[in-house]
């Protein structure tokens, strides 16, 4: 079956273009761009709305196994489809953690049965995420792991980490690190500074991120491992990242949408939905990190989707669980950066689709013939006020509750199959 998109505003992150055109899908793949749409194709009239590669979201937490009441593969899949996210790269910080091929197979099986979108799991770097022994990386790679990480737990024993990195290098595996000096960040729930001091919250200095990053760069240089920083959130870390890339290390970096669109003051009167890891930063850091994304220094924007139930959040700020859901708000929140003139749409989709797909070895993220037809159709202009109870995620812990957002996902396709939305389907002439 062939599917044609007429009168679309094509956002092509690979070519860096944003222009009117047509797109033809056949056999679940993109068959042609800008060609005539054949008569037998079902044609969707996009009416000038944006058609882009579906988002590839790196670092999504799903509650399976262990916390299905917070998020199941089914609810995560529905949320992703509604948010225009066509591939989830999931985190292994589940309970138990995804640290053996058996658990990974369980996850893959559940994901395949329950979700309409692509799931690419990451596996733990060390057994039990305990930072002592490396996992069976070879078996895990064979079972489909796309990267290895202990998520927000830093492997503080450098000998263990060095060996894991060396072993991973032998396998050509990607490691996802969490740049943070755990001694400095222990017990902290805010960024140290005027705000944390006034609110009486234990803070961590931004330098803790730089120190963690510098240590990891030393080990990357020593072992030659392929390495990706899950989140770079401070201006102080950026020169070190630039240096690492200039020195030819195989290093990339990500940042969460929350650190790009919110700052520490948003916590206000101890609003726990704004408690994330690492904590929200000063406005100067936010601006610097946005600029780093625009310059291509930071490669990937992700949602760091972390579902938490009401009970985990209805606590004093220090005791509340960190994390925010983000699958459904990733694109509308990212469009704030577009509307503010900080990033173009091709730049946004480079950071949210093309770059993550490339880095994690996936064929998605492109609008070129041969690429999978994972697509999102959206209107960047439609305004809305978010009501968190309309989210499809089982957990409603979004910092954007009540926020004015501009941009709405109209429809999503995975391998040419519609997984979200209703679109006007018009028969092509003849």
């Amino acid at each position: 079956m062939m599917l044609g998109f007429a009168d679309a505003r094509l956002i092509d992150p690979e070519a860096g273009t944003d222009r009117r055109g047509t797109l033809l899908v056949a056999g679940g793949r993109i068959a042609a761009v800008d060609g005539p749409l054949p008569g037998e194709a079902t044609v969707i009239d996009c009416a000038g709305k944006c058609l882009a590669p579906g988002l590839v979201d790196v670092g999504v937490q799903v509650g399976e196994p262990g916390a299905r009441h917070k998020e199941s593969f089914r609810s995560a899949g529905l949320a992703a489809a509604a948010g225009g996210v066509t591939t989830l790269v999931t985190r292994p910080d589940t309970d138990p953690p995804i640290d053996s091929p058996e658990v990974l197979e369980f996850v893959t099986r559940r994901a395949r049965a329950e979700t309409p979108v692509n799931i690419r799991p990451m596996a733990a770097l060390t057994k039990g995420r305990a930072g002592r022994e490396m996992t069976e990386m070879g078996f895990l790679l064979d079972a489909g792991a796309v990267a290895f990480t202990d998520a927000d737990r830093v492997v503080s024993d450098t000998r263990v980490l060095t060996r894991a990195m060396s072993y991973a290098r032998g396998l050509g595996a990607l490691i996802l690190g969490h740049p943070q000096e755990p001694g400095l960040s222990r017990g902290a729930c805010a960024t140290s500074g005027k705000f944390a001091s006034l609110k009486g919250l234990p803070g961590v200095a931004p330098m803790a991120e730089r120190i963690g990053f510098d240590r990891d760069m030393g080990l990357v240089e020593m072992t030659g491992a392929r390495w990706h920083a899950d989140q770079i959130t401070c201006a102080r870390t950026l020169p070190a990242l630039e240096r690492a890339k200039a020195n030819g290390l195989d290093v990339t970096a990500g940042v969460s949408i929350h650190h790009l669109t919110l700052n520490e003051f948003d916590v206000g009167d101890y609003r726990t939905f704004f408690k994330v890891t690492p904590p929200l930063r000063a406005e100067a850091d936010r601006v610097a990190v946005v600029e780093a994304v625009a310059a291509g220094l930071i490669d990937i924007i992700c949602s760091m989707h972390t579902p938490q139930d009401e009970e985990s959040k209805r606590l004093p700020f220090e005791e509340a669980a960190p994390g925010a859901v983000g699958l459904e708000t990733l694109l509308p929140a990212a469009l704030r950066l577009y509307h503010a003139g900080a990033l173009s749409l091709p730049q946004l989709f480079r950071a949210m689709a093309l770059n993550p797909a490339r880095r994690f070895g996936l064929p998605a993220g492109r609008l070129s013939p041969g690429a999978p037809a994972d697509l999102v159709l959206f209107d960047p202009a439609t305004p809305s006020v978010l009501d968190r109870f309309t989210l499809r995620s089982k957990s409603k812990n979004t910092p954007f509750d009540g926020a004015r957002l501009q941009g709405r996902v109209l429809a999503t396709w995975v391998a040419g199959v519609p997984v979200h939305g209703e679109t006007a389907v018009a028969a092509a002439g003849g």
Partner: protein
Amino acid sequence: MALRARHLLGIEPLAPDEITALLDLAERHAGRNRGGEKHTALLAGLTQINMFFEPSTRTQASFELAGKRLGADVMNMSVAQSSVKKGETLIDTALTLNAMHPDLLVVRHPASGAVDLLAEKVACAVLNAGDGRHEHPTQALLDALTIRRAKGRLHRLTVAICGDIAHSRVARSNLILLNRMENRVRLVGPPTLMPAGVGELGCEVTDDMREGLAGADVVMMLRLQKERMDGGFIPSEREYYHRYGLDAEKLLHAKPDAIVMHPGPMNRGVEIDGTLADDIRHSVIQQQVEMGVAVRMAAMEMLTASLRAARAG
């Protein structure tokens, strides 16, 4: 005059005229407290619950006495020993209490912001008796009243707040109040006990006692919060006393008529010299305790006035 907010969660939301009104009212209560007939019926028929999630003797006693002198029915709950140990959340505890229809809830909690959270869930007026490292508004008010009585004014004074600023809610509330009333505030303490970015809050910061005390009208010492220290903030108590403990020699750098304050309980020989603490030429520490009851009476009277007005309206 009533307070604009339903609760007293901190000094931060208070306007200067509200602070002045609270202190004026407290002044009247202080006068009555010194007389023979201490009891009034201003809060008669109202229920006050003191809920302390953190052990406290002095503050709890002060609130209890304040409520009783105003004629309220006062109940003390030491939650530190009860349901929290059974896994009940703060919100459930709040809802349980709310169902008993109190009119005033006095709350102390070890986590910053916990009292704000609780206040959202109850129908009565909430009075913050100290939340984590955040605020302790009645302490700052009683300090302000003590200063005003000793100095005759509460503006254009140089106040040095000394010691463990980082872990102190007393320091935060005092800093906000004294700034709001247009005083010059200095924070003095070792860098390890000084919170980050505090210099941006409109005060001078120094780690030298002599420099910090120079020309001060008021020297406010803080308790070295031993129970809060994760360890390693200072090398030893004796070195701390040597560099930061207030003694007669260091006090010479302040104005000759400077007053010495301490929120209590004191560690004599750690942050303050025992003889100096008892020296009535400088020390107003006992007056602070006295003003504590008066200020709490004033705060409760004004909160319940707002509550009654809201219920009538």
